[in-house]
């Protein structure tokens, strides 16, 4: 049977199952009050993975340095709080997004002349340069030790961050994620998003239909950087510290693994991937404290061999085959 020809006309409409992740998010709040710290980390990670999906999954920009923007956001919030006493959460996130977006715009302008492996290396270089800058700028960034013990004022002047149970942190992160998700969802189903998939699928053809390819790539790179910056800022706010790890290769590679696990270019791949990754890490670390990464590696090999579209891709295939 040929697929319905009106997929394009319908896919942007909300489906009932799209409520599930948010229902699950709220259910977690009530069902596992002792795991809300873990849950908050999960939400921050999902937002970060979602920002990567926009460039990697939709526009096909191969980057290994996306933690650069996560880190810029995290340090923006940290330095504003530490040095200027600017510790109002919402405006802090806005600043994180703006600064990271600006860094994305400038670096994108320079880097997005390149493709493939070259691009992979220069994005990695950019992140490493920023990491070293943070390491050496001790007076502003706290250098290797970072900035511990940051505190923030009440959200909207009403809800204070509670360090013991993470209740307000969790709901705050869930709200920010929901907003970020709406931004990404709107973008990928728009004509702009459609043109990004065109760039990913065939650059030559995209030039031949008269699209301003490089301009589109720079714009989406900046938007994605801003979102990554917001997730980084969120990380600093909910944990109360920032250190060099926010800019590290481990974080950049981790978020890429998450997207590959869940399925890139699929909007919900970030959710599925982040949950799978963090749960897997949690369980494996418990079972094999010394060699848990082996289990992760084997899972990745299996995904690369049998499920190129990640878990969501596998699900789509199974549903299609039925």
């Amino acid at each position, binding site marked *: 049977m040929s697929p319905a020809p009106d997929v*394009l006309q319908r896919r*942007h409409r909300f489906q009932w199952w799209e409520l599930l992740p948010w229902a699950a998010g709220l259910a977690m709040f009530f069902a596992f009050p002792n795991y809300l710290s873990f849950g908050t980390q999960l939400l921050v990670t999902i937002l970060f993975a979602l920002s990567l999906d926009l460039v990697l999954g939709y526009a096909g920009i191969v980057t290994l340095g996306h933690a650069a923007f996560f880190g810029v956001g995290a340090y923006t919030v940290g330095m504003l709080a530490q040095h200027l006493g600017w510790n109002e959460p919402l405006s802090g996130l806005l600043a994180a997004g703006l600064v990271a977006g600006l860094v994305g715009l400038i670096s994108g302008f320079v880097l997005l002349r390149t493709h493939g492996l070259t691009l992979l290396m220069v994005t990695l270089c950019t992140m490493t340069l920023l990491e070293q800058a943070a390491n050496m700028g001790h007076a502003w960034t706290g250098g290797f030790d970072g900035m511990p013990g940051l505190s923030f004022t009440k959200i909207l002047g009403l809800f204070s961050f509670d360090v013991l149970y993470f209740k307000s942190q969790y709901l705050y992160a869930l709200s920010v994620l929901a907003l970020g998700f709406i931004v990404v969802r709107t973008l990928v189903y*728009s004509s702009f998003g459609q043109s990004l998939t065109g760039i990913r699928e065939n650059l030559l053809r995209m*030039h031949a239909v008269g699209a301003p390819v490089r301009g589109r790539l720079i714009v989406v790179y900046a938007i994605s950087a801003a979102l990554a910056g917001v997730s980084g800022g969120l990380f600093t706010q909910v944990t109360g510290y920032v250190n060099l790890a926010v800019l590290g290769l481990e974080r950049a590679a981790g978020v890429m693994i998450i997207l590959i696990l869940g399925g890139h270019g699929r909007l919900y791949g970030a959710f599925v991937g982040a949950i799978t990754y963090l749960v897997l890490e949690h369980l494996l670390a418990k079972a094999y404290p010394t060699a848990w990464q082996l289990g992760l590696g084997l899972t990745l090999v299996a995904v690369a061999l049998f499920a190129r579209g990640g878990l969501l891709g596998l699900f789509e295939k199974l549903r299609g085959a039925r």
Partner: protein
Amino acid sequence: MLETRGLCKNFGALEVARDIHFRLEPGARHALIGPNGAGKTTFINLLTGVLAPSKGSILLEGEDVTALAQAKRVKRGIARTFQINQLFLGLTVQENVCIAVSERLGVGGAMLRPAGKRADVLAEAGRLIEMLKLGNDAGRRIIELPYGRQRLVEIAIALGLAPRVLLLDEPAAGIPSAETHILLDAIATLPKDIAVIIIEHDMDVVFRFAERITVLVSGAVFAEGTAQEIAANREVRAVYLGSALDA
């Protein structure tokens, strides 16, 4: 409509286009023929701005467009198809055509409205898909289609740009002969004010379609004239047409 003056292109010592003077009248049906390696595709690449000429100029409606980037020339109405399909393989036929139409209508960068709610884009894409008899495959991904069907999507994308000059690089290559008529019908129903250049090795297609023919050999214009003149030209028969026409 479209004119080149003394167009040259070298790759080092290799001359792939030599002093090409070419004129395309509005509404022309013009074929470009010649042996393999004659520089036909190079000429298309020069016209569309994929390659910059080493010497000479290109004029579109009397205006010099030699220095204009590819995307700008598309906006001025030069569209092409590729000798080897260049499609968005993972996307559906409908999306492939919609991407081209969105760019032409200037909404390709719009971020808020869902692409599926652009009635004007969808209607225009739908019209082209029907015109090329691709209706049953509109929701299929390109990768699932046989090569001949994909070839028709190439044409639909080019038409989606509402060109005034359409460059078809071996459009019939890879289409089963039973389906060539869909292509020829589509070309025949193009508005008369679109000028069409076709590169083709199938002489049946060339002589059914073309009013004028230019023969390229080794990057230079070898002969130019009406279809009848070229068919009767002894030298052209000797270097290229010979066997193709006698068969």
